């Protein structure tokens, strides 16, 4: 099981435009990579069915912790056919995870800058944001994890971005989940259309 060191930053449209200009000039442009993602937010894990709409592929991913519970994510994933995405969603929903499911389309463009993979994204919940990632081998020592986090922090600073703290990430995702819950309840309680 590989380990991803992931860190995130949110920013305005103006900062987004400056960031993309800088990454196109000084980084490696890995191209667009839009995704439609079905998230199952479980108590201590995150299960995802991802339709890589730009790449024309799909996958199922289980992450060993949720956003806001540390930067290191143990990850297991396997490919599925894009045509099987609806069936995968149906299976997980039928297993009782439906109430924990959110779906989102991510407009995404990937770059590599100074050894760090940077996905510049927009989604309805997060707005403009970036995910910084360094992939480590299974069993990487704590020192390697700390080094990867330091590397990402340096790159973010170089790009003029402030990374979200674990507390900010936890607060943000908790607020999103609460708003989603309220929205679903409001929809269920809405008066019938006449």
């Amino acid at each position, binding site marked *: 099981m590989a380990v991803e060191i992931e860190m995130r930053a949110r920013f305005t449209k103006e900062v987004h435009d400056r960031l993309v200009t800088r990454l196109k000039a000084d980084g490696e442009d890995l191209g667009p990579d839009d995704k439609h993602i079905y998230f199952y937010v479980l108590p201590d894990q995150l299960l995802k069915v991802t339709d890589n709409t730009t790449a024309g592929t799909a996958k199922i991913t289980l992450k060993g912790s949720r956003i806001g519970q540390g930067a290191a994510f143990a990850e297991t994933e396997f490919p599925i056919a894009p045509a099987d995405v609806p069936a995968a969603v149906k299976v997980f929903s039928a297993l009782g995870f439906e109430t924990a499911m959110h779906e989102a389309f991510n*407009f995404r463009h990937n770059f590599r800058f100074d050894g760090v993979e940077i996905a510049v994204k927009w989604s309805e919940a997060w707005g403009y944001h970036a995910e910084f990632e360094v992939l480590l081998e299974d069993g990487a020592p704590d020192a390697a994890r700390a080094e990867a986090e330091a590397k990402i922090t340096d790159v973010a600073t170089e790009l003029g971005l402030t990374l979200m703290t674990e507390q900010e990430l936890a607060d943000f995702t908790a607020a999103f989940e609460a708003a989603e819950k309220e929205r679903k309840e*409001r929809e269920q309680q809405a008066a019938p259309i006449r």
Partner: protein
Amino acid sequence: MSTTPLTASLIDLAARGQLPLHQHMDHATVEWISSHRPDLPPAPRPALRPQSKELLTRGGLPTRWWADPRLYTSLHGVRHAMRTAALAAVLAEANGLDDADAATAVVAAAVHDCQRRHDKDDRGHGDRAAVWLAANADTVWDHFGFAATPRRIVQAATAVRLHDVPYGAFTADDRADHARVERITDVVKAADALDRYRLPKLKWWPNAAYVREPAFDQLRGLAFDLVLVSERAYLAGAGGTAAVRYALAEKGLV
């Protein structure tokens, strides 16, 4: 009239006079729109008041509001509704509408086509939508986080009823109604007209002669970009709501 699913692009079908009842965007038509961008001045980046931003970022408009669910994703579906609502918010700023009138214009713009039966010349759909809005006022205003007051309902329903009636065809009753809700009605009609860049024939694109809006020409660039960005996003796989919200973010509106 045919309800046969599309086998050709909207531009081809429009050129042959064979557009179906339900018209769904396609890649060829979006690229045709892109290649026919008029010589427009750079789109201004209007600043919306916080209330309008909040209205535009409220939950997506429910499918069940549409009389025919097939229209939710068509040319008169949720993407058109959301862009029209956004353009109404921009026009509300340009015309100095107060908060109450701006919110009423946005709500009216969001639902103005929801009772269409098809994407062709559906006479009376404004009238039907106005009746629907009055009947479902609590649901609609609650969705946007407001209370449905009699004044708001009458104003919005009037604008919705008159949105598909040309000014030159107004009856005496229409003129009397328009006089009572003039600014909101004019904003909704102009916002609806600005979103015509999505239509697959140049002669159907926005024409200032059919509206009463001094800022109309200044907003053509913004309207064109909102169509192009959101329709491309939709065809890339985003849902209708996400596609338009992305376009609004790209244009700095939310």
